């Protein structure tokens, strides 16, 4: 047990950059022997000017030609495709007909798009949620300020910036945020909860929720939003969203997906509604996390 613990502490120290692994040359960049510098080529000035002039004259022409060729290829492709919405199109086969007919009774969603992305293609959406989760985690790794990468000077600068922000608060922004952000939050919640029978759903509803949080934070500062949405709450919500999705969809798959018998009641959107909420939580946290990391490097 003690050996395992010491291995764990060593690993943690290595992650924090305080401890070098035993085979340090495996992980550190080696310094090879210095290469001989090439003797500098000095063109005569006039010649260089001429060369530069020639380059600058053919560069726009070449880029324009390449762009026109690319646009031509794309336009030819679009024109060669079958026109939109025709009956004899190859995409108009029994698959979309089945989806349009049976979405309601198989998934409980009257919005066929929601039934498609959250139920039939649920794995796809799960992958996208994981991508968002990982993206915001990577931004955290790069930009989050903690005691290891913040110097005293940075802290003082941040404090000065905060004081400057407090000195000249934007009245228009604050009043607009005070008026608008409750309604934006309400609309986001409506889109989240009604995604199975009206346009909206997890991604757009979550983005609207995140937008409301961003508006509130940019108007009143992050101290105001930290009263109810600090780092602990943020991480909890984000992880719970993804885990909720994984557990629900895993349960759905293992009890028989795609119209097989399962125990999930299909009233009120069946599985779509909780999955929508889970995706919305992840997306809202992602949006707000990007904003917080880019502005101040802390939640």
């Amino acid at each position: 047990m003690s050996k395992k613990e010491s291995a764990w502490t060593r690993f943690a120290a290595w992650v924090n950059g305080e401890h070098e692994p035993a085979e340090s040359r495996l992980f550190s960049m080696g310094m090879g022997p210095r290469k001989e510098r090439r003797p500098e080529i000095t063109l005569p000035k006039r010649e260089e000017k001429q060369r530069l002039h020639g380059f600058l004259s053919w560069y726009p022409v070449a880029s324009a030609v390449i762009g026109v060729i690319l646009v031509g290829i794309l336009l030819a492709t679009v024109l060669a495709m079958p026109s939109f919405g025709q009956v004899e199109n190859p995409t108009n086969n029994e698959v979309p007909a089945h989806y349009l007919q049976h979405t309601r009774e198989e998934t409980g969603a009257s919005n066929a798009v929601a039934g498609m992305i959250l139920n039939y293609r649920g794995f796809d959406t799960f992958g996208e949620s994981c991508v968002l989760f990982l993206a915001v985690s990577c931004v955290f790794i790069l930009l989050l300020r903690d005691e290891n990468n913040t110097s005293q000077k940075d802290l003082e600068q941040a404090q000065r910036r905060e004081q400057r922000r407090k000195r000249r608060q934007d009245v228009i922004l604050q009043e607009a945020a005070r008026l608008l952000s409750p309604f934006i939050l309400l609309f986001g919640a409506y889109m989240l909860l009604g995604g199975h029978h009206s346009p909206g759903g997890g991604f757009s509803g979550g983005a609207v929720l995140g937008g409301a949080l961003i508006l509130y934070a940019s108007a009143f500062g992050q101290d105001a939003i930290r009263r109810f949405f600090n780092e602990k709450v943020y991480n909890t919500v984000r992880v719970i969203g993804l885990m909720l999705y994984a557990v629900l969809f895993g349960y759905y798959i293992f009890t028989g997906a795609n119209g097989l018998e399962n125990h999930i009641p299909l009233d009120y959107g069946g599985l779509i509604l909780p999955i929508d909420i889970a995706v919305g939580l992840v997306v809202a946290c992602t949006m707000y996390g990007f904003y917080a990391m880019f502005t101040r490097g802390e939640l």
Partner: protein
Amino acid sequence: MTLLEDILLLGLIVTAVAAPLCKRLMATVIVYMSFGLLMAVLWVLLESPDLAVTEAAVGVGVTTILFFLTLRRIHELKGTKDE
């Protein structure tokens, strides 16, 4: 309705051409934002409101905010030079 669609499509082309031609990066971001807004209205006219809502929220709102924050970080906006 088709006249409105034509106007919107023309606006799409104009904004798409104008965005890279702007001298200031802030103007580029704003023109790109108007491109996204036109696109969102077009999605509604093309009967895909799901896409319209997502475009308006993500493409116009959050992307523009992130662009502005990046511009502030690289001191491209007016009055964001470090003292």
